[in-house]
């Protein structure tokens, strides 16, 4: 009995020891699969900093964790509208760009830069990725491709019982998709338009509500089409090639859609601010950035990197490249803004009401 106890205790002790290797830590709160992990390992080795990467499923989850303040987060990767809110509520701090030695050289895409400069983000963010939302679908379903390409958003909302459609279980995205389908602005605050969006979502009677697992459900043949982020499609495409699986899915971006941006920001509750800057700067090194963006599948916001990756997609996969550009010339894509707390609550209620217990 005693021997067993000593053995177990020492095992527990050894296990806790092996768990932490470096003294300095950096707490990163980010989306899952949103960074090439081998690069994080490389950073850990090079700077002797232990990176603790916590994945979250939505901007709202991210905000809840920050508000609760019961743990330190040094770097977070929120999207446009949540950055807007974080700045309003003074929850994030300005970035010290003098510490980012590689930032200048990379050159932010001017269209994107002006989009977020207008919202007053410039001092607070280092852009990380941008893209659109679109429809991912199975190409082995008879007639589905034509249906999606001719109907656009209506394909998602009017697939009826012919195809099984999936929708994002996030109030922002679900309502935005409905507003786009109805031809309204994704930031609409008009009560009547929101009501129409609600009934459109209800009538669509989606087969599944999910977060980033919707694409997986398409691959698993539980769904035929779903709302999916552009980069997720590319990421799946690369993964299928890696695994030597047949590619039986496509992606379509309807004419009117949104444009979104995720950026790296440092919250006020951060404690390892210097390491945070080191981490950002590491991911801005050209060769690191190139490898990282090739891995994640999302469009890089930096011209030099973007051009190289775009050219590669064009030469490797040809036609696929057309959906890679989040903001093609002449398009009028809108970015989400936070609006008010009342709107956020209303969106949450709409989502709760339209997810039916049938």
């Amino acid at each position, binding site marked *: 009995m005693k021997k067993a*106890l000593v053995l*177990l*205790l020492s*095992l*527990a002790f050894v*296990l*806790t020891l*092996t*768990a932490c290797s470096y003294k300095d*830590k950096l*707490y990163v*709160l980010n*989306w*899952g*699969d949103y960074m090439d*992990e081998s690069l994080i390992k490389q950073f850990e080795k090079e700077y002797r900093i232990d990176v*603790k990467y*916590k*994945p*979250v*499923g939505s901007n709202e989850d991210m905000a809840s964790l920050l508000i*609760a303040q*019961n*743990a*330190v*987060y040094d770097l977070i990767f929120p999207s446009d509208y949540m950055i807007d809110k974080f700045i309003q509520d003074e929850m994030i701090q300005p970035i010290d760009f003098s510490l980012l030695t590689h930032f200048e050289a990379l050159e932010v895409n001017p269209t994107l830069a002006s989009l977020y400069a207008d919202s007053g983000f410039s001092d607070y963010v280092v852009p990380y990725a941008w893209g659109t939302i679109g429809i991912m679908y199975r190409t082995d379903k008879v007639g589905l491709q034509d249906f999606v390409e001719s109907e656009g958003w209506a394909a998602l909302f009017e697939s009826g019982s012919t195809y099984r459609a999936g929708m994002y279980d996030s109030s922002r995205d679900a309502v935005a998709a409905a507003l786009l389908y109805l031809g309204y602005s994704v930031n609409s605050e008009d009560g009547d338009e929101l009501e129409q969006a609600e009934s459109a979502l209800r009538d669509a009677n989606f087969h599944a509500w999910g*977060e*980033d*697992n919707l*694409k*997986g459900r398409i*691959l*698993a*043949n539980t769904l035929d089409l779903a709302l999916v982020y552009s980069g*997720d499609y590319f*990421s*799946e495409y*690369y*993964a299928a090639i*890696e*695994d030597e*699986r047949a590619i039986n899915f496509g992606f379509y971006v309807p004419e009117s859609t949104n444009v979104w941006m995720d950026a790296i920001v440092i919250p006020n509750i951060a404690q390892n601010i210097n390491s945070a800057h080191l981490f950002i700067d590491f991911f801005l090194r050209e060769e690191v950035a190139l490898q990282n963006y090739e891995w994640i599948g999302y469009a890089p916001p930096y011209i030099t990197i973007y051009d190289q990756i775009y050219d590669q997609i064009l030469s490797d996969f040809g036609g696929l490249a057309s959906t890679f550009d989040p903001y093609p010339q002449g398009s009028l894509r809108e970015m989400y803004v936070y609006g008010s707390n009342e709107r956020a609550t209303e969106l949450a209620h709409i989502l709760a009401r339209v997810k039916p217990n049938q």
Partner: protein
Amino acid sequence: MKRRKQRILMAKAMGVILTVMTFLILYVPILLILMLSLNDSARGYQWEGFTLKWYAMLFLDDIMKDPIVNTISIAILSTIISTILGTIFAIGIHALEKKRRVRMMVMNNVPVVNPDIVTGISLMIIFSILSFTLGFSTVLIAHVFFSIPYVILNIIPKLKRLDPNLYEAGLDLGCSRIEAVWRVIIPNISTGILTGALMAFTMSIDDFVITYFTSGNEYMNVSTWLYAALAREGRNSFTPVAYAYNTIIFLLTIIIIVFVNTRKERKVRTHEKSTCFTP
């Protein structure tokens, strides 16, 4: 008479059929997990041939190292702490007079009956009020918290079967109070302690909900890791190594049970002798 025999036979057949059904519904998912751990496919949509590479990766690659290390170290620590505390508390509760004992047991059973989600949220709130930083220590406290009641529930019945005069006899024969507990009471309730510890270990190693609400920026156990990975099911977030880990833990626990059960039978025979006066 013949009819009655027929009825008994039918009842027996029904018992067998339902038992088979029970085992099917319990074991089909587990067999599927086993097959997924042997399937040569990262996504597991189809059966793509036999492989052992996920088992190799479990030991060679550190893809799931942190969550596994966290899970096992919390399980071991919380089992040890809650078993020791639970044993002490159970002895204390058993010594109370009936009314207060029942009252204590009612309190004790609150976390057992309370839904996990309510326990998790209560703990999250109390940690927030006490401004504890969520992490390894809060998860450990939480696991000790929900394990103790099970340890106590396993020990109390054994204490009831214990002859109360045995302890007094120990004292009369010159044992100190603590010594008498250690030498007289503990050996006689050891089977209860052991099953209690086993239960505490099980609860801890498989917990999701309570860990989900009490872990912070750093700590992730296998369950919370899986929850995040399955929410995305992407390229790097989910790996069949999880199936391999699960299968190995599963086999290990079977071995532990067999081991404990055979030991228990041996121990019961040797116990009668171990008291203060025969050192």
